[in-house]
C-alpha cells in the first residue's frame, strides 16, 4: 500500500493530502499535518475526494452523437470528428465563431494547452478560463496597491473583516483559522445577508439587505473622510472618491442596508482602531459589475487604513487563481456569433445557463469531462477525462501557492488526461504539438513572474450598482449561498456516495415569519419563480434570514423572485 502526496482538487484552499493506493486503486485519503494551509485538517469533500475516482459512472469511452443519442466511439473516431468539426467551422465561419472554455479545476498545464489550441492553432480570441467574465483582470486585481493576506496572517491579525464570507462553507481551511483566531482573542467584524454561526461570535455582525455590500463599504469610506478629512489631500482619485462617498452618509447607508446607524459607526470604529486588519472576500461570489465595485472599494478602504491592513481574496476552485492569471478576457465577451464550443469541464451558475442556452444555435459542442455532466449530455462529442489522481500537473491555490498533483495510479482504463486529449487534437489539426517539458517551463515562467509592484496610491471611485428592484410580482430576493458539500456543478460530489447521501435534498431557506405567513409547513415544496427561470424545491424556515430574503445553493438563480405553493 502506497501513500502518494498530492493536492486536493476541490476548492481554492489547496490543502495537502495523501492518497492511499492499494492494488491500483485509491482506497482512502489522509491529511497532511505539516502542510502550511491545511495543517492536518480536511473538509468532508477532501476526506471523500477519492470516492468518485472509481465510481461506476466514470466515462470510459469517447462518445459521438448520432441522431438524438450519444454513441460509443473509438478515440481515433472522436479525435478525428472533433478536428474535422473545428477545421470546417473555421473555414465556414472564421475563427471568431469558435470558443473554448476551461474550468477552474483544470491544471495550469491544461489551461495553457487549451489557450495554445484556441489562440495559436484555431486563431480565436474567445477563450474563457473558469468564468465567462472576470470582474477584474488578474493584473488589475493584484496591482500591488494593497498587501495580499496569506493564511498565516489570519492568526496574527487583531481584526478580521469578513465581507460576504460564509465562514464554514466556502474555504474551510481559512475559516478554521478564523475560528481559532477568534478563540485566541482576535476580533471579527462581518457583513453578510445570513446570520451565520460565526456571526453570533463576531464582535460586530451587520446583517445587511441583499446586494448592499457596496453601499456599506462606501459608507465606511464616507466615515473615513469625515474622520480624517485632510489625510488624503493630493492622492490621485481622492476628489472623485470623496465626491462619490458623499452620497453614502451613515443615515442613508443604514437605510439602504437595513442596519442601525450606531452599528455602522461601531464597525467603523473597530476598523479604524485595528492595527493589522485582514479583509476576507470570496472571489466570484457576485455578479461581475457589482464585484468590480466591491473590490475597488475594499482596496480604497485598505489604502485609507494605511499600514498593516491586508486583503485575502479567496478564489473558489483549486485552480481558479491559475485560470485568472492566464485569462485574457474580461467582462462582456460576446458569444452570440459562436458556432462551435469546446469545454474542458463545465462552467457553473449563470455561466452554465448562458452556455447551455447556446445549444440550439451551435453546430458543434465538444465536452471533456469525467462524468456525464449536463454539458456532456448536451454535447456532440464527449471525451472521457482522467481524474486528479491519475495525472500530473499544478494547481495555483488562492494564495498563489503552486502545488503539484501526481499520478498516484494510472489513468482509469479508457480515459486520458486532458493535456493528452488537447495535444492529440493539436496533432490532428496538423499543428505543432508542445512537449510536456515546454508546457511545464511555460507554467513556471508565467506563474513565477512577480506581480507589478505599485507603491503609488490611487483611489478608484467605482459606482455601486443598486440592489435589484423588487415589486409585487417579485417581492423576494434570492441570495446565493455556499454549502460546503455542494461543489461547483456537483458533478463529482454527487458521484461520491457519502456526499450524495448528505445532499439528498435541495432546499431553499426563508424567514420563519414569512414562511408561516405563506401558510407553509416543514417538508412542503414551493415554486420559486425569477425572471430568468424557476425551480421547485423544498422550503425550510430559518431564523437567520431577514424578511424578503431567500437563501439557496442554486447559484444560477439570483435576484428578485416570487414564491408560490407548489
Amino acid at each position, binding site marked *: *500500500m*502506497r*501513500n502518494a502526496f498530492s493536492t486536493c482538487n476541490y476548492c481554492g484552499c489547496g490543502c495537502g493530502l495523501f492518497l492511499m493506493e492499494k492494488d491500483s486503486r485509491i482506497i482512502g485519503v*489522509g491529511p497532511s499535518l505539516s502542510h502550511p494551509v491545511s495543517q492536518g485538517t480536511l473538509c468532508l469533500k477532501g*476526506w471523500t475526494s*477519492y470516492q468518485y475516482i472509481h465510481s461506476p459512472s466514470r466515462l470510459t469511452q469517447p462518445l459521438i452523437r448520432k441522431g438524438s443519442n450519444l454513441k460509443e466511439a473509438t478515440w481515433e473516431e472522436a479525435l478525428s470528428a472533433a478536428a474535422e468539426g473545428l477545421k470546417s467551422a473555421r473555414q465556414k465561419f472564421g475563427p471568431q465563431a469558435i470558443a473554448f472554455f476551461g474550468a477552474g479545476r483544470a491544471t495550469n498545464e491544461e489551461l495553457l494547452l487549451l489557450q495554445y489550441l484556441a489562440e495559436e492553432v484555431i486563431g480565436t480570441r474567445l477563450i474563457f478560463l473558469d468564468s465567462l467574465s472576470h470582474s477584474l483582470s488578474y493584473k488589475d486585481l493584484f496591482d500591488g496597491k494593497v498587501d495580499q493576506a496569506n493564511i498565516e496572517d489570519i492568526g496574527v491579525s487583531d481584526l478580521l473583516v469578513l465581507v460576504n464570507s460564509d465562514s464554514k462553507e466556502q474555504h474551510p481551511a481559512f475559516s478554521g483559522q478564523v475560528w481559532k483566531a477568534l478563540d485566541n482573542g482576535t476580533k471579527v467584524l462581518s457583513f453578510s445577508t445570513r446570520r451565520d454561526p460565526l456571526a453570533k*461570535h463576531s464582535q460586530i455582525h451587520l446583517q445587511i439587505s441583499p446586494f448592499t455590500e457596496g453601499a456599506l463599504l462606501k459608507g465606511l469610506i464616507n466615515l473615513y473622510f469625515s474622520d480624517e478629512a485632510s489625510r488624503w489631500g493630493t492622492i490621485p482619485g481622492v476628489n472623485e472618491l470623496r465626491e462619490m462617498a458623499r452620497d453614502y452618509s451613515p443615515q442613508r447607508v443604514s437605510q439602504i442596508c437595513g442596519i442601525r446607524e450606531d452599528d455602522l459607526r461601531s464597525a467603523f470604529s473597530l476598523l479604524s482602531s485595528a492595527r493589522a486588519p485582514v479583509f476576507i472576500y470570496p472571489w466570484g461570489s457576485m455578479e461581475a459589475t457589482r464585484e468590480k465595485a466591491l473590490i475597488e472599494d475594499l482596496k480604497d478602504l485598505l489604502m485609507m487604513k494605511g499600514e498593516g491592513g491586508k486583503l485575502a481574496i479567496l478564489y473558489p476552485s483549486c485552480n481558479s487563481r491559475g485560470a485568472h492569471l492566464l485569462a485574457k478576457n474580461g467582462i462582456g465577451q460576446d458569444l452570440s456569433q459562436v458556432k462551435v464550443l469546446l469545454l474542458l469541464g463545465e462552467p457553473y451558475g449563470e455561466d452554465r445557463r448562458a452556455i447551455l442556452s447556446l445549444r440550439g444555435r451551435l453546430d458543434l459542442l465538444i465536452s471533456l469531462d469525467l462524468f456525464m455532466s449536463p454539458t456532456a449530455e448536451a454535447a456532440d462529442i464527449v471525451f472521457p477525462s482522467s481524474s486528479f489522481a491519475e495525472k500530473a500537473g499544478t494547481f495555483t491555490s488562492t494564495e498563489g501557492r503552486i502545488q503539484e498533483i501526481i499520478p498516484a495510479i494510472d489513468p482509469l482504463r479508457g480515459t486520458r488526461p486532458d493535456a493528452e486529449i488537447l495535444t492529440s487534437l493539436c496533432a490532428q489539426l496538423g499543428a505543432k504539438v508542445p512537449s510536456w517539458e515546454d508546457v511545464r517551463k511555460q507554467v513556471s515562467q508565467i506563474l513565477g513572474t512577480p506581480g507589478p509592484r505599485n507603491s503609488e496610491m490611487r483611489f478608484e471611485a467605482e459606482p455601486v450598482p443598486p440592489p435589484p428592484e423588487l415589486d409585487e410580482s417579485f417581492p423576494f430576493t434570492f441570495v446565493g449561498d455556499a454549502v*460546503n458539500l455542494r461543489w461547483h456543478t456537483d458533478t463529482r460530489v454527487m458521484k461520491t456516495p457519502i456526499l450524495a447521501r*448528505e445532499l439528498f435534498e435541495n432546499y431553499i431557506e426563508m424567514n420563519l415569519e414569512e414562511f408561516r405567513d405563506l401558510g407553509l409547513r416543514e417538508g412542503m415544496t414551493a415554486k420559486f419563480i425569477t425572471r430568468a427561470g424557476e425551480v421547485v424545491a423544498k422550503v425550510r424556515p430559518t431564523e437567520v434570514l431577514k424578511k424578503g430574503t431567500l437563501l439557496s445553493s442554486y447559484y444560477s438563480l439570483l435576484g428578485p423572485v416570487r414564491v408560490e405553493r407548489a
Partner: protein
Amino acid sequence: MQKEARIISKSHVLEWVKNLQGIGEVIGPTKDPKAPTHDYVFARLSSPEEIRLDYTHDLLPLKRFFFSPTETLLRYRYQDGVHLEAEIDETKRFFFGVRSCDMIGVRYLQNIFSANYEDPYVLKKIESATFITLACHTPPLDTCFCICIDGGPSLAEGYDIQLWDLEDRYLVEVGSEKGMAAISASEGLFKAARDQDFRDREKRQSVTDQMFKIDAYFSRSIYRVTTGKVPDEVWQELEDRCFNCGGCYYVCPMCYCFQIIDCPHSPTEGERQRIWDSCVHVGFQRETSGHNPRPKLAETIKHRYFHKISYQNFKREGRNGCVGCGRCLIACYSNIDMPSVLRKIRKDQLTMSWKGHFDGHPLK
C-alpha cells in the same frame, strides 16, 4: 512482575527489521523524501532504512490497516444465477514502532469486531499481525493527553513486543508468543536485559507524565453525559462551530462506524464495499422515507459523545472511546476536540469561551 525482556542496541535495529522483512511485510513510520511537506506516515517498508522511529505521529491512525477505508466485501457476478467471491486478507505483517494509544485502538477494534458476530475482514488482519510498540518517553506532540484516559504512554498488555527507548538501546519487553517468535528469528541481535536496564527505564519514565501539556478531565463529563444532564445549548453551540468535516472520526483510532455500498461495474457484475462513514453526519440515520431520528448536527454530535464517554457504552464495550492521542485537536477546524468539549460539558458555562489550546500551530 517483569516480563521476558531483552536489550537490542539501536545500531542493530535495522538488521532486525531486515530479518522481519524476510518473514512478512514490515509496516512502520516513514517520511516521503519526495513530498514537499514533512509528514510521518505508516507505510510498508521497501528497505529498512526508511523507518523513522524518531517520528511524532501519523495523523491517520493504524485502524486503516485493519478496518480499511474501502474494503471489498464480496464480488458478484450474474451468470445463470448469482456467483459470489470473497477474499480475506491474512498476509503476515509486522507493525513496527506503534504508539501505545494506537495499540489500544487496535485492541479496542478487535473487541468490537469480535463481539456478538465476528468480522473476518478486520479480525484476520489483526490476527495475522505482530505488533512491536514503542512506549513514549516524551509525548510525541503537544496535543497528546493519553495519561488522562488510560491510553498510554506505555502499555501493561495488548502488545506482542514493547520497546522502551534507553537512548543508545531499546529495552525489549515480550508480551506474547508472537512477540517471542519475532525475536527468536534474530536471537543473535539481542542481549539479556539486566537490572540496570530496568532502572534506567524507571528513571526515564518517572518524568514522562509531567511533560504533557493538555488537561482533559473525563470524570465529571462522563457523569453528565451518562445521566443526560448536559443542557441542549451546549450541543447547539457545538453545532454552530462544527464544520461537518468528519475529521474527528477519520483520525480517531476508536471510531469505526461504516457504510456498505454496492458498486456495479457492469449490469452483470460488481462488488459490495465497506466504506468509512461517520455518525456525526446528519444523513447517517436518515431512512428511505426521509424520516431522520437525528436531523441536526447538535443531535449527532451529542450521540457521538454519548457513544464515546457514557457509562452505558463503557459497560458495553469495555472502555471509553478515547485514548487521548490528540489527533482530534489537530483535525478539528474550530477547537471542538475532546478535551475542549469535556471542559465545556464539565464546567457547564455556556458563556465560557472556547480557548484554543495553543497560540499557533501545535507543531511549533
